[in-house]
């Protein structure tokens, strides 16, 4: 009983790491940017990977008519509430100590995570395809959407999209809650 409780509470609390560290990174590599340029995505903001990177990404992208990376998005208001609530809910379920609640929480997290990734994909699509018709450089059929995850060649750049420590800790936390469920189920079978 005790072990699964700790796992459930600990796993939910790991979500809070998203408030203190970024969850995602998009890096752009090209020979004339020897240090690479990129951005770190948090649940409530987008930050320079190195000083001035977003300014320089915007400068480069304006030639093909891409919009500037927004300083604020509605997601930045929603995500902290969702993550905070889920952490609180997970802790509550942990105290209640019901294994089915553990599983419910995990499935809910998976659905929310998938929704978040889908939202991220929509933003990336919009960012890569909504081009100013007055753009100086127009390449028919060329989109500039960064990869959801992984590596993609976009004209002279290699774009890399990958999770960062915040996301990894969230995954670990989710795994812990799932493990809590199976651990508890096994324990019940042995006792029965």
């Amino acid at each position: 009983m005790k072990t699964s409780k700790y796992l459930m509470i600990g796993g939910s609390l790991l979500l809070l790491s998203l408030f203190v560290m970024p969850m995602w990174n998009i890096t752009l590599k090209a020979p004339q940017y020897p240090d690479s340029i990129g951005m770190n995505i948090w649940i409530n903001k987008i930050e320079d990977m190195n000083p001035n990177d977003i300014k320089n990404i915007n400068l480069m992208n304006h030639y093909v008519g891409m919009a500037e990376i927004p300083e604020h998005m509605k997601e930045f208001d929603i995500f902290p509430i969702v993550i905070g609530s889920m952490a609180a809910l997970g802790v509550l379920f942990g105290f209640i100590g019901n294994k089915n609640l553990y599983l419910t929480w995990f499935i809910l997290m998976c659905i929310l995570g998938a929704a978040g990734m889908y939202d991220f994909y929509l933003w990336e699509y919009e960012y890569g395809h909504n081009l100013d018709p007055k753009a100086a450089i127009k390449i028919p059929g060329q989109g500039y959407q960064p990869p959801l995850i992984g590596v993609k060649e976009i004209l002279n750049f290699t774009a890399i999209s990958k999770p960062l420590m915040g996301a990894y800790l969230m995954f670990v936390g989710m795994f812990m809650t799932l493990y809590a469920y199976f651990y508890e189920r096994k324990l019940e079978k042995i006792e029965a």
Partner: protein
Amino acid sequence: MKLTNYITLFAVLFAMASSACMQSNNNGALGGSAAEKVYVAPGEQDEFYAFLSGGYSGNLTVYGLPSGRMLKEIPVFSQFPTSGYGYSEETKPMFNTSYGFIPWDDLHHPDISQTNGELDGRWIFANANNTPRIARISLETFETEEIIEIPNSAGNHSSSFITENTEYVVAGTRFSVPVPQRDISIDEYKGNFKGAVSFVSVDEESGRMDLSFQIMMPGFNYDLGHPGRGDSHGWFFFTTYNTEEANTLLEVNASQNDKDFIAAINWKKAEEYIAQGKFTTMESEYAHNVYDEHTHTGTSTMKKEVRVLDPTELPGLVYFLPTPKSPHGVDVDPSGEYIVGAGKLSASLTVHSFSNMMEAIENENFDGDAYGIPILNFENVTAGQVESAGLGPLHTEFDGRGNAYTTFFISSEVVKWELGSWEVIDRKPTYYSVGHLMIPGGNSREPFGKYVVAMNKITKDRYLPTGPEMEHSAQLYDISGEKMELLLDFPTHGEPHYAAGAPASLIAPRSKKFYQLEDNEHPYAVMNEGETKVVREGNSNVVHVYMSTIRSHFAPDNIEGIKVGDKVYFHITNLEQDFDVPHGVAMIGANTSELLIMPGQTKTFLWEPEKVGVWPFYCTDFCSALHQEMQGYVRVSPRNSNIELSWSLDGE
């Protein structure tokens, strides 16, 4: 043995000898090993920075070693249209002197700042020979940050050498002059002309220079100088020639004395005399020009006074060390014990010992005096002579392993010799007539004795001919082994008289990539395009354009309401914040150079339109894919026109 056997043996020996011969050719300077040693593969960087003086170019050139690739030309004492230095309104004050605006000088002897006798790579100092000045250049920005004029001096040649904690940078006088300047006959040279030696203090934190005091020396020619280090820290040594005090046909009349002097100046003693108030304050006039990295602007102030010490009345301040035949270089070995005088009309080198000198001073082993300054007994101070080392020794550097390397101008060679035994170890020809040489850190307690660069005065046939005027040649030698090995021959820019070098690891990591826009305190800077504007000062003819650049446009790029006879100041801020994204600007008919503006920087040029019309300006640096589109127009109307000032970018 049969005859055939003899023939076979002879043939074998001949074959061995000739193959040995070929092998030695292959191992020569043109062999593969030399090429490999200087080859810096594409994308790789050099191991050392070398800062070569530009002589009459007035600038400092930066090279990479061992490749010999030129990396940059830093404008110091000469206007430089490439960047707008000395043309922009911000940098014109850097050229101010007591004689007014002087757009050129002759830069001789760069020296890198030191801490505890080791290179610290913070600043490099350089001297102007013609109108005496010393400049300080930042090794973070590679920009000239400060220039101080030296009063009461002429021909500032024995400069700009620093003491081992960069307490002082010194200036001497090569052409003694009446002090104070006055209308007297040139024939009255003897006794009336003086050779001021100046100690300019350097602030430990900011590097700011201040003329601390001058020692008013007899009217000799003070040629070169070097600081003591280790035990001899606190002393400074200067070579003199023309101790004859001739004022005409010096090539003969200043070459009569068998020995001239090395002047040993006890600057710690000078500090004591200053503290005791034993100086006179002399009225003078000299400019002090400071460039501020945040306002991106130079300001010039005139100083009015200088503290002067009289060595003829202050015992223990100066001693003379007799040194044969008009010595040029005076070089102190890394330990501080040996003081090498290169008598340029001599075939040998004279090495004095600091401990001998101190003993001779204590025992008063004097051989008379000059204007009351004690002359030490030659036999008592000399440690040894490097005999018949070559012809016309000029300058010596050290490798930190007990060896010294001296250039010989007349016999065109670099000679390696050993300290203590005074034996010649090796000699290599130079091409041709070598002046100075440089080992990175070779003038400090800790030389990096891997390479020596020899800087020549004559080039002749070394490179493809380029008409009557050739750039000066330099040679790079590997000195890591017992024998020197010639590795590379490369042209330099201007006339390098001396150089300073440092490991790349000391300087490269601190090199600034761009200026922070938010730190820009220029009074006419803009932080974004929204702040750009055009303002006329009241009803005057002075107009200020607050303009910005970012890839790939000026803001504003259409300006109307300018009138013939206006003085239009274009203040241009580069809003970029990335490494190596400058923008340039040039205006048709502007009587000035272009400006090259670094990210985060503001620069200003003045345009005084004289003709009605619509006049374009454009970006001079290929900044981006749409650089060719980076342009704008200014409409100029007649003086009596009523057109109001207006400005726009894309109609807004």
